[in-house]
C-alpha cells in the first residue's frame, strides 16, 4: 500500500549517532529510588505499602484507582522509607514511594516462563493492567485502556510504532536491533487481543538496519514492516496513522475512531514480558545523551534519580545548561538532576551551557513558516496572537485544542517566539474556563 506524506513537519539534525551504536546496559540500583504514584495519564494509583515494609524487585506498591489507572511496582529490593512529596518530571513535586535499596531479591514467580497461549482476552488485558504497563513512547497512556476499545469501534489496523522521530533518542532503535523477537511476540499478543486485519510495524528510514532485521523476523507472520520517510513528527500517533492508512483521526477523536491502534515497540516488549515472565514494568530503556562523556542506552530502574543515571553515562562534560527529560522537541527541562526516571522517560538529554541559546524574541514577521510546518494544519501565528490578546474562544475555533505540542512551529520561528509554550498555557486556560 502506498505511503502518504503527512503535511508539514521539520528536519532537525537527529544527533542519533551519539548513542546509536551503544548496546543497552543495565544500570545498577542507586542508594534510594523514588517511585512516583502517578506515572501515567489518568488518576494516580493508591499506595498499598506502609513505611518500613520490605519489598522485592517487582513487588506491587500501589493499586489503580478507576479504569484509566495502573499500579506501580518496586524496581529494587529494600525497605520502604515512606511516601514523600518528591520531584516529578512534570515539574512539580508529587507523592512518591521512597525505597532504600538493600540486596537484590526478586519477587516470587517473576522470571519463570509461563504458557499464555490459553489465556482469555480479558485475562490478558487484566494481566497487562496489573503489570503497570503504559505507552512507553512518552505519553504514558495506560495500555489496557487502549486494548479495550468500545465494542462499536472495532480495530482493524494495529500499528507498532518504531518511528522514533525525536532527535537524539535511540532507545527504541536499540530495542529493535537487540530484541526484535520479543517485539514480534508482544505484537502477536496485541494481535490476539484485538484481532485486526492488518498489523504494521512503522520505522523511519534513517534506521535501515532496524527495518532489515525486523523484515527478516516477521517473515511468515503476516506482519508488515514499513519504512517511513524520516521527518519529525512522523512518530506522532495521528501523523503515523495518516501515513500508513490514509485515515484522518477526527479532530478531538482517538485512533479507535478510525479503527486504529498505535503502540510503541518498547511497550510491545513490556506486554510480552508481562505475560511470558510475569514481569511488571519496573525498569525501562532510557537514552542518556548530549553533553555526557559516554552517551548510551541504559536499562534503568524506575524511580532512579537522573543524577545517578548521568553518572553511569560518564558524567556531564562541562557545565550543565539544561537537563531535558525526553527529546529536544517535546522534552521537559528539569529544575534539578534529582528528578527520577519514570515509565514515560524515553531519554535524558543534557545540553551544556554553551549549547543553550537564549535568543531575542522578535515581533512576528508573518513569514508563515509555522503555518507551513504545522503537522495538524493549524495557524500558530494567529493562535498566538489571539491567546496573547486573551481571545481564547477565537483561538479555540482555530483549532487550539488540537495542537499536539510537537514544537515544529517554535522550532522554525525566525523571530524565536515561544509558540508552543503559549499554546500550552492557552489550552490550560480554555480547560479552566470550561470547568466553570
Amino acid at each position, binding site marked *: 500500500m502506498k505511503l502518504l506524506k503527512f503535511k508539514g513537519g*521539520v528536519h532537525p539534525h537527529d544527533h542519533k549517532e551519539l548513542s546509536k551504536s551503544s548496546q543497552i546496559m543495565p544500570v545498577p540500583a542507586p542508594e534510594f529510588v523514588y517511585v512516583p504514584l502517578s506515572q501515567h495519564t489518568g488518576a494516580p494509583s493508591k499506595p498499598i505499602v506502609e513505611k518500613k515494609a520490605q519489598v522485592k524487585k517487582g513487588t506491587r506498591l500501589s493499586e489503580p484507582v478507576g479504569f484509566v489507572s495502573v499500579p506501580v511496582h518496586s524496581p529494587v529490593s529494600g525497605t520502604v522509607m515512606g511516601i514523600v512529596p518528591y520531584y516529578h518530571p512534570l515539574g512539580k513535586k508529587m507523592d512518591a514511594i521512597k525505597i532504600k535499596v538493600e540486596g537484590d531479591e526478586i519477587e516470587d514467580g517473576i522470571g519463570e516462563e509461563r504458557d499464555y497461549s490459553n489465556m482469555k482476552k480479558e485475562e490478558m488485558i487484566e494481566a497487562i493492567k496489573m503489570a503497570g504497563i503504559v505507552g512507553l513512547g512518552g505519553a504514558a497512556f495506560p495500555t489496557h485502556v487502549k486494548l479495550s476499545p468500545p465494542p462499536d469501534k472495532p480495530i482493524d489496523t494495529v500499528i507498532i510504532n518504531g518511528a522514533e522521530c525525536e532527535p537524539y533518542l535511540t532507545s527504541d532503535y536499540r530495542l529493535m536491533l537487540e530484541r526484535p523477537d520479543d517485539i514480534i511476540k508482544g505484537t502477536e499478543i496485541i494481535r490476539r487481543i484485538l484481532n485486526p486485519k492488518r498489523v504494521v510495524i512503522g520505522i523511519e528510514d534513517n534506521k535501515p538496519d532496524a527495518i532489515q532485521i525486523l523484515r527478516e523476523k516477521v517473515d511468515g507472520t503476516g506482519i508488515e514492516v514499513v519504512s517511513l520517510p524520516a521527518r519529525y513528527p512522523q512518530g506522532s500517533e495521528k501523523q503515523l496513522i495518516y501515513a500508513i492508512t490514509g485515515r484522518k483521526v477526527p479532530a478531538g477523536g482517538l485512533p479507535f475512531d478510525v479503527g486504529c491502534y498505535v503502540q510503541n515497540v518498547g511497550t510491545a516488549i513490556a506486554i510480552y514480558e508481562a505475560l511470558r515472565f510475569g514481569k511488571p514494568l519496573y525498569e525501562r530503556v532510557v537514552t542518556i545523551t548530549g553533553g555526557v562523556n559516554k552517551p548510551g542506552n541504559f536499562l534503568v530502574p524506575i524511580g532512579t534519580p537522573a543524577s545517578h543515571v548521568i553518572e553511569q553515562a560518564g558524567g556531564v562534560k562541562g557545565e*550543565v545548561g539544561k537537563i531535558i527529560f525526553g527529546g529536544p522537541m517535546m522534552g521537559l527541562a528539569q529544575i534539578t538532576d534529582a528528578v527520577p526516571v519514570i515509565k514515560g522517560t524515553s531519554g535524558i538529554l543534557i545540553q551544556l551551557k554553551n549549547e543553550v541559546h*537564549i535568543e531575542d524574541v522578535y515581533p512576528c514577521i508573518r513569514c508563515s513558516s509555522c503555518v507551513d510546518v504545522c503537522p495538524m*494544519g493549524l495557524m500558530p501565528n494567529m493562535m498566538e496572537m489571539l491567546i496573547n490578546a486573551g481571545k481564547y474562544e477565537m483561538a479555540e475555533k482555530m483549532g487550539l485544542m488540537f495542537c499536539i505540542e510537537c514544537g515544529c512551529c517554535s522550532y522554525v520561528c*525566525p523571530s524565536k517566539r515561544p509558540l508552543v509554550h503559549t499554546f500550552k498555557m492557552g489550552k490550560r486556560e480554555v480547560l479552566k474556563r470550561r470547568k466553570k
Partner: protein
Amino acid sequence: MYISSSPHIRKDWNVKKIMYGVVIALMPAFIGSIYFFGWRAAYLTFLSVVTAVLTEYLFQKITKRKITAFDGSAIITGILLAFNIPVKSPWWLPVVGSFFAILVAKQFFGGLGYNIFNPALAGRAFVMASWPQIMTGRWSAPLHGSISGIDGITSATPLNLLKLHATDPAVLSRINSPEMLKNLFIGNVGGCIGETSALLLLIGAIFLFVMRYADWRISVGYIGTVFVVAWIFYLTGLTPAGPLFHILSGGVFLGGLFMATDMVTSPVTPAGRWIFGIAGGLICMLIRVWGGYPEGVSYSILFMNMFVPLLDRVRPKYLGEVKK
C-alpha cells in the same frame, strides 16, 4: 541551569538572516543598475538606505523603543525605494521617500511586523503623488542602449511607448520584436533604477526561493497572471503588446519577486498567497490597460496589501477537521 519550554532546539536562522538574505538577493539588480545608469544609481540608493536606517534609529531612540534599525529590514526598504525612482531624480527625492516609508508606513503602524502596507511602495506612492513630473517625466536612456529598448526611438520608456504611441505603426511593428524583448529581459531600457533587468532580479529571487526567504507562490501567481491576462488582452486587441512584453516591462519582476513577497504585508496561508498574487497581477493589468498610469505594479500590490487580513482567513483545514 536553564529551564524553558520545549522545543529545546531551534532552526539556525532568524529575522536578521532573512533580512540580510533579501539584501543579498537585491545585489545583482543593484550592480546592474550601476552598469545601466551609472554611479548616480548607487548614490541615490545609498542616500535612500542611509535615510531609512537613520529614520528608524532616531524614531526608536526618541520613543525609547528597542533599537532594531540595524536588523536589515530598513536597508531593504531603502534599496527598494531607490529601485522605484528614476535615476534623474534629485538627491532629496529618495531621502523624502525613505523617510516617509519608514516613519509613516512602518513605524507609525508599530514597526516591523505590524505595518499593513509595504513601506517602500507606500514611500513610492507618496513621492509619486507629490512630484509626479519627476517620477514620470524624467527618464533617461541606459548607458549602453536606448530608452525605449528599440533602436532609433528615444522618446519614451517601453511602457510609455505603449501608452502614448500605441497607434504609431512604426512602433507597433517592433514592440514584440526579439530585439525589444531581449533588451527588456537584460534591462537595457529606460526605467526606474532597479526595475529594468528581469534577468538580474530573477537571479536574486531564485536565491530567495531556495533559502525560503520568499514564497514562490506569490511570485508565480502575480507574474503568471500578468502573463495570462496580457495574452488574453493581446489576443482580443485590448493591448498591442504581447504577454512577454508585459511581464518584462515596468516593475512586474521587481514587484512580483521582491515587493509582493514581503512577508509582513502578504498573507500567511498557501491559498491566501495564491489569491494575493493572482488578484495583484490582474489589477496590475487592469491599470495598465484602462488606468491613467502606464504602470500598475505598485498600486496593485498596495491595493492587495489591504486585503491581507481578509485573506488570512482562508485558513487551511486542520488534520481531521470535521464539517459542522
